[in-house]
């Protein structure tokens, strides 16, 4: 089943009199259970593509379908709902709510989804244990390392049981060991829980672990390799 369908998507930004074309006709289909990396040099359009798939930004032309819904047809609050219920996000860094503990951060999305109290608490605890942070439930982000914070972010992203988890260079701010461990975790969740991951990277070691590698260059798909 197709979770994401990107058809002939163009995206340009205008700053002053200068128009920059970030995406120039991208076609991409992501199926359920995929573990796909989008790679490419800086400025190739990785983040733009993820923002569009994540319903955070709108296309200039072309269309995107997420979980069967045509994104351009949705209102702002319908987009909020789609993000909340169907998409999990992991950003590069500083992605947690600093005043909430690890458990509360994970519970937050479930709160928005109105998951009942007891189920929410149990699920948050189980997921944090799953990502190896069972002993850090009541720590705030500032009391955790960068790698631990990213694992909480992954836990939060999957807690909502989304159709798709988007991760924009999740290992960029981590050392190679911690980054490798995070990737192992994502891979494990993909294999055991069938969570669909779409992540961007320019780290060669991360690309090697992906089951599908999409190469972007100058706003176009240069290569699409399934392994």
């Amino acid at each position, binding site marked *: 089943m197709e979770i994401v369908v990107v058809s002939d998507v163009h995206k340009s930004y205008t700053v002053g009199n200068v128009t920059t074309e970030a995406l120039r006709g991208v076609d991409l289909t992501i199926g359920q259970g995929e573990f796909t990396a989008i790679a490419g040099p800086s400025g190739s359009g990785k983040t733009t593509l993820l*923002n569009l798939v*994540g319903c*955070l*930004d709108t296309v200039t032309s072309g269309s995107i379908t997420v979980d069967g819904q045509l994104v351009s047809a949705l209102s702002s*609050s319908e987009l*909020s*709902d789609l*993000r*909340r*219920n169907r998409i*999990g*996000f992991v*950003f590069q860094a*500083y*992605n947690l*709510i*600093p*005043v*909430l503990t690890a458990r*509360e951060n994970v519970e*937050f*999305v479930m*709160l*928005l*989804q*109105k998951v009942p109290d007891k189920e929410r608490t149990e699920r948050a605890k189980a997921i944090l244990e799953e990502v190896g942070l069972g002993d850090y439930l009541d720590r705030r982000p500032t009391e955790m390392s960068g790698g631990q914070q990213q694992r909480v972010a992954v836990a*939060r992203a999957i807690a*909502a049981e989304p159709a798709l988890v988007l991760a924009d260079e999740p290992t960029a701010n981590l050392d190679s060991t911690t980054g490798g461990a995070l990737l192992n975790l994502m891979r494990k969740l993909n294999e055991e829980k069938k969570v669909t991951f779409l992540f961007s990277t320019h780290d060669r070691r991360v690309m090697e672990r992906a089951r599908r590698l999409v190469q972007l260059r100058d706003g176009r798909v240069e290569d699409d390799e399934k392994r």
Partner: protein
Amino acid sequence: MLGIYVKIAWRNIFRNRRRSFVVIGSVAVGVAGAIFMILFMMGMAEQMVHAAINSYLGHIQIHRTGFADNPVVRLTMSDPDSVIGQVERIGGRIQGYSPRILTRGLAQSATNSAGVQIIGVEAVRESLLTSVASRIVEGTFLTGETSLRRKEVVVGDALAQKLGLQLGRKVVLVAQAHGGDMGSGAFRVVGIFKMPSEDLNKALVWINLQDAQEMLGVGDGLSEVMVMLHKDDDLAAVQKALASELGDEYEVRTWQDASREMVQMVELFDVSTLIMMAVVFFAAAFGIVNTMLMSVFERMREFGILRAIGTRPWALFRMVIYEAMFIGFLGIAGGVVIIGILYLAGLGKGLDLSVFAESLALFGSDAVIKPYFDVPMFIETVVLVEVMTVLASLWPAMRASRLQPVEAIRQK
């Protein structure tokens, strides 16, 4: 659901402790300043009014109709017993009454003369009701002794100075008597008073009622029956009751009718208190706008992430408002604590403004201002501060809720 936003808002206050402390502190100081002003401005107004009521005005004055505008001997009450009978019938709400002769006249000493307001009173009744007896700085108040050779007079210190009077010295009082003749009498100074009001110290002269009646040739007639109440709140009711009982022949006036200046002064005090409070509140409001804006701009990325993971704009708006509400609550609590500490530290006993005693005397106020705690005004202040805090955070809250997630996330 509400809980998590309240929780985030509350914890956000402790994120930048120094900044929160400064803004909560400024609200606290503003609130303390406002309460302080209310306590003492109201205290001062209250004191001025009571000084006037207690010095000689009384709560209610009963005269023959027309006397207040034209205080002439012709308008003396011919049947004062019936008036006093009505006053006595009012009963418990009345602290007491004082039958009086009031007339304008001239006081002459060996060296000088001055226009005065002569008040003839029953010494004991008067000293129980008004403050004049307690304001004597030299000698005594009237004793009520009316042996013809030594008629008693009590004068203010300012008048004594002007006329060169000392205790035991003679002064001649002259006033228009019944039938158009001039009445006069020789009096000896038995006491000198000093009231907070300089005007009263210059103008008032107290003599015994019987001496006054004789001087004016009015027999048992009275110019005024002054009524003092236990509680200010009974003023309107008692005035109305007396007016309806006494009919058209008599005028029943309250201190407000008798002293329009005092009423205007109190109104002026209220207005200036409001203006000062507004200034303090505006200053505090700008502090809050500034702090909330800074704290919102600092957290753009965080708000962006909250929006990205599905938080609705309205929720972010509320979060910022809750934060401001907490700042308001903490500031108010701080302000109350500051006032509480000052109160215990001695402010409760009154604010000693002896340095400004002369200026205060112009307003008829004592040098020590006692705080007056007005509960409704206190509640209004607190509610106003809270409302203002919320209003001040509307704009920052709007900024937070309107931001585009993709742009907010791009910020580092």
